[in-house]
């Protein structure tokens, strides 16, 4: 290969060579994680070869429903996002904050060894990349940083894969977070092209990405390759199941604080917190204290938490958000409105997980439209 590769280049790697790319990434010292089939869904797992990827599978997703089906082709990435998001790896559900030991009436903290895995996140969807950028701002952008997240983020290699098979609950196109990668923070961005010879158009986004592709047989992307990739993206946009208009969402939701429609949602909402567990941007955590049986050792652990629990807002005397309507209102208002005040962006990336994994199929896009219509009517009536 005479030409030297540089950041920003677009090359083509044939489907048959996908395994070479995986090997090359592994040779760089990364443990590869990516989509796999498990528990009847696409979930994240370890990828040792391309055979671990969900080849020939697709998903049917809609409000409160998710099913895997065989595809008629051998697409490697012919599905949308599953219940897992990458925050499992970058912001794990459990993390020990510190350990301490008692000596009589005193205690002292113990030194701790912390491992930061060098993970390659393989098959990150553009909406998920957007979610990682959101969490970067939350966990690394303020006066206090989460040191563990920062280390994991720094140690990881990210391979984005554009979506050609959006799900029924997806609405990234309307939020500008997909279905093709248009932002920053990734090392490689792949577009799977199914028409003609099965191949991947690969964009190189970093030195690490460059290193990963260098050892893999590649050729320059031709205008025909790029055109085929672009056509696929256009098709994906057209087939996207849902949409949400983010313009003015903050004002609408702030104006809707006393809308009785929250109560109507609360009639359906089970306050189970599923939406917060599957959401790729939700970052709330609780802490748990544990002691050894003889009381000589104690440790504090950080665990994912949900604003739907009563304990979440508990202060002596009761929970601040006791009513279910108040808890749903807090979650949705945070995602689409107050997040903007806090971090300068939406807390929603349009992945649709909260719609799919809600046991009763509450649809944030539909509820947003209801509030928008109600505020519109109120303004009309006030005229």
């Amino acid at each position: 290969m005479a030409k030297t590769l540089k950041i920003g280049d677009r090359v083509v790697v044939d489907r048959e060579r996908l395994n070479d790319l995986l090997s090359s990434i592994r040779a760089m010292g990364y443990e590869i994680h990516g989509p796999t089939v498990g528990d009847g869904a696409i979930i994240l797992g370890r990828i040792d070869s391309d055979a671990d990827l969900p080849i020939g599978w697709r998903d049917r997703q809609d409000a409160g429903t998710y099913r895997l089906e065989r595809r008629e082709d051998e697409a490697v990435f012919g599905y949308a996002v599953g219940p897992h998001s990458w925050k499992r790896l970058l912001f794990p559900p459990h993390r020990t904050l510190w350990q301490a030991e008692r000596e009589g009436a005193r205690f002292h903290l113990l030194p701790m060894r912390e491992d930061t895995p060098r993970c390659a996140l393989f098959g990150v969807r553009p909406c998920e990349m957007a979610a990682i950028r959101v969490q970067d701002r939350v966990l690394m952008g303020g006066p206090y940083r989460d040191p563990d997240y920062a280390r994991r983020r720094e140690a990881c290699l990210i391979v984005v894969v554009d979506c050609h098979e959006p799900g029924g609950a997806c609405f990234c196109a309307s939020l500008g977070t997909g279905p093709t990668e248009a932002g920053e923070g990734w090392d490689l961005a792949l577009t799977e092209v199914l028409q003609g010879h099965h191949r991947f158009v690969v964009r190189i986004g970093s030195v690490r990405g460059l290193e990963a592709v260098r050892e893999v047989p590649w050729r320059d992307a031709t205008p025909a390759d790029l055109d085929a990739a672009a056509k696929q993206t256009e098709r994906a946009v057209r087939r996207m199941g849902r949409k949400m208009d983010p313009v003015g969402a903050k004002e609408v939701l702030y104006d809707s604080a006393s809308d009785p429609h929250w109560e109507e949602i609360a009639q359906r909402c089970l306050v189970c917190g599923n939406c917060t567990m599957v959401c790729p941007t939700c970052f709330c955590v609780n802490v748990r204290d544990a002691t050894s049986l003889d009381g000589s050792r104690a440790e504090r652990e950080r665990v994912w938490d949900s604003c739907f629990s009563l304990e979440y807002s508990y202060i002596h005397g009761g929970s601040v958000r006791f009513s279910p309507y108040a808890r749903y209102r807090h979650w949705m208002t945070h995602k689409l409105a107050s997040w903007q005040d806090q971090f300068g962006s939406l807390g929603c990336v349009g992945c649709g997980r909260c719609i799919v994994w809600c046991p009763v199929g509450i649809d944030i896009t539909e509820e947003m439209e209801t509030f928008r219509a109600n505020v519109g009517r109120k303004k009309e009536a006030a005229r």
Partner: protein
Amino acid sequence: MATSIERAVGAADPMVPAPYVVERFIRETQDTFSLELEPFDPSAELRFLPGQFNMLYVFGVGEVPISISGDAAEPKKLVHTTREVGVVTRAMRGLKPGHTIGVRGPFGTSWPMEAAKGHDVVLVAGGIGLAPLRPALYWILRNRDDYGKVVLLYGTRSPEDILYSKELAKWRSQFDLEVYITVDRATSEWRGNVGVVTKLVGRAPFDPADTVAMVCGPEIMMRFAVEELARRGVPTSDIYVSMERNMKCGIGLCGHCQLRGEFVCKDGPVYRFDAIEPLFMEREL
């Protein structure tokens, strides 16, 4: 495939507590007490501003946010006053001199000691709400010439529940400080005011047009106190309140303390009232 780090204990991680020794345990009232703490590391001192809080950890039990109630001019002696309301504060009551406690902080915003300079100051405290206001009072008394008339209005349940009673008696006898105390339920010996603290606002001696008010207590009490202050003509931009929310981190990362867009732990707990008025009035926000 992993990089390991040896983490030094407490190495600049705001989630790791520093060990402090309990120097004194002071029983204040039947359900309140104060702890005087000193750092293990004698060179350490915890510089704080009136109104800020710390996260206090009891070994194996848990951690809670508690406002600092000591004198900011004596940062080596850390004082916290709390009421026994939960598992952690009950465990704290069992601490004795020599015991270790974990401290993280200080966190949050402070009372407007600078903005109040040159003005009258009204402190309105309800119950344990006096504890976070005491550092403001110490500050004022140390810099008495910086402030105009200073009034403390304090309401509590009964005469037995009066916090810092000896100090209050001393302050009452001072000519440069007006102290008004009221109780919800009087006893036969009580010859003072009876009723809610907000009633005292109307007759306290201060110039409403030139006053900074600092209010701390239950939310419902703060709401009525603000109403009374506003009725007397204190602009809401000169009224400050201290909010209480569930807090697990103190640094804006756990999410628990959110009040719409506010992280009460880092954007608060002390707020200028006009900045959060709409949030204050909405139920279960």
